[in-house]
């Protein structure tokens, strides 16, 4: 029997920042090649995905079905460009394939499909069902007395969906401490800001009332993401929710905090500017002036 070793953790923060920068560039290139898709969300969550795939998760890109892996359930499937970029950069599939995003015959469907691409744990897109699936996985793993952890990523907009709260109640009742959920808190959704469309605050208090441990972090800080996950791992009596405050469109000046960039890709011209900005940021990280 061959022993499967997990993907080696990257602990150097500067290296993690550079990886996040690379993932952002990959997102821009994939989106411009696709000609449709979501820009702001994936860019905002690049640091979270970097922290998860390069430091936090126990996984092995050469053995995507490895029993010993942690599970990452992406509930808000529309930010999949960042998931695809993270998977490609850890070696689940060739990076060149990122440019096939959303094209006919691609493994990189517009919203992720579990059986299409190695490394995907679920099919998602319609919002509100990811936390339920993560809860199912966490419950089943606990039944089997397995130590693997389950991570679930949700958007803030999908906190408006009733099913999210059905699942939140279930997770709280069953004290699924092997489950850590993130809310991609970037305050925007398609029709405007979340607090205009359907006010979500006080979000932390709501989850606390459902028997969750709640943390709020700056999710554009990879170290803060790693620290929060470590804290969640140490808490054994209840599930943890990490409210991941982030800047949508992070790293591209004209996309940052602008909800109009929720659901569209850059044009070739805009992509050029975006990539130039990201390269400037990269050299700043290299020289420690970021």
């Amino acid at each position, binding site marked *: 029997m061959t022993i499967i070793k997990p993907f080696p953790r990257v602990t150097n923060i500067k290296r993690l920042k550079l990886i996040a920068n690379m993932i952002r560039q990959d997102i821009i290139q994939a989106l411009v090649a696709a000609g449709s898709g979501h820009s702001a969300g994936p860019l905002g969550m690049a640091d979270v995905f970097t922290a998860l795939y390069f430091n936090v998760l126990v996984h092995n890109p050469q053995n995507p079905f490895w029993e010993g892996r942690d599970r990452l359930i992406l509930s808000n499937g529309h930010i999949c460009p960042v998931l695809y970029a993270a998977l490609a950069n850890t070696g689940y599939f060739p990076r060149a394939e990122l440019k096939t995003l959303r094209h006919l015959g691609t493994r990189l469907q517009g919203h992720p499909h579990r059986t299409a691409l190695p490394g995907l744990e679920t099919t998602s897109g*319609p919002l509100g069902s990811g936390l339920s699936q993560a809860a*199912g996985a966490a419950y089943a793993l606990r039944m089997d007395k397995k130590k693997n952890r389950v991570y679930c990523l949700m958007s803030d907009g999908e906190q408006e969906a009733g099913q999210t709260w059905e699942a939140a109640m279930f997770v709280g009742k069953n004290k699924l401490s092997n489950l850590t959920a993130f809310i991609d808190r970037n305050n925007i959704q398609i029709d405007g800001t979340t607090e205009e469309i359907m006010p979500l605050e006080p979000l932390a208090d709501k989850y606390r009332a459902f028997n969750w441990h709640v943390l709020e972090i700056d999710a554009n800080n990879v170290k803060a993401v790693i620290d929060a996950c470590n804290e969640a791992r140490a808490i054994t009596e209840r599930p943890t929710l990490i409210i991941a405050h982030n800047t949508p469109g992070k790293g591209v000046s004209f996309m940052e905090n602008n909800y109009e960039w929720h659901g569209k890709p850059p044009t070739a011209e805009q992509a050029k500017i975006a990539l130039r900005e990201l390269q400037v940021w990269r050299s700043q990280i290299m020289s420690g002036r970021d």
Partner: protein
Amino acid sequence: MGSINPRMYLIDALYSKNVKKVNTRDGYGKGLVKAGEKNPDVVVICADLTESTRSLWFQEKFPDRFVEVGVAEQNMASLAAGMAATGKVVFISSYAAFSPGRNNEQIRTTISYNSWKSKPGKEINVKIGGAHAGISVGPDGATHQQLEDVALMRMQPGMTVLVPCDDVECEKATVAAAEYPGPVYIRFGRTSYPSYTTIKTPFQIGRIEEFRSGKDCTIIANGPLLYEALIAAKKLEKEIDCQVLNCHTVKPLDCGTLLKAVQKTGCVVTAEEHQWLGGLGGAIAEFISEVYPVPIKRIGVQDRFGESGNPDELFKEFHLTADDIVKAVREAVRMKQWQKRK
């Protein structure tokens, strides 16, 4: 002249007035326990209807493998998908009006599509038990009389749809569903029906069984209407020789057996406790109209909602009785003869 197929091992007293009546859902409950005994990965989830869906019997036997989610059918469906993705075989139990009635999208995305094109052994093994389906829920009224579920489930790629005819077959269907790869929908009603199949009656997912041979007209039925079809065939014995097929698997359809049957008899009557659109009748009509067009009549609820009443009254009110099947058979045969004359 046709007759009851001896290889189906139906009870001898098939047409006796004293034929034993049993709740079909009892078969589901027994099947769950059996499946749980066979496979330690079988889990049952229920949404606050543990006793009436008979999931209780599994809960009593395997409390550690039973999960209560409360009144939350959408969560139940996706929760099951998450468990199935980690290797469990998960039955979700509720009334058909709520599951798949309410959680259709969750079943579509997180179960059926999630399972679509899986590597063998990596399917999303969620089995949906839709209880209290059909108008026979009776006094509860139209909100609880799910009549569109077979159509809903049949439309989903990769979904298997089973409508067992009595408690014994429902037990077999439940056990078979646990072993069958991918998502399966098992549909059954609340009230008690004649229990006339036996342990020896053959059952295989995807196979139509000929319960009665005949040469003049093929009656294809499932669920409680299959017994009505057998009674209709008996009533017509001296006039029209009816073949009666048990089509418990609405999807995937046993096209080979169907084709042979319609080639022989040249006309068809379908019967089901469901809307006449999109269910068994829809499936058969789609198939024969494309492959071997012959006259067809469909017995089903004719594009209306149910209402309160006793099951027997409702079956009459909604034209789902043996007498209605008799009329339909006569008409189908008349259409066949008229076409021949032309």
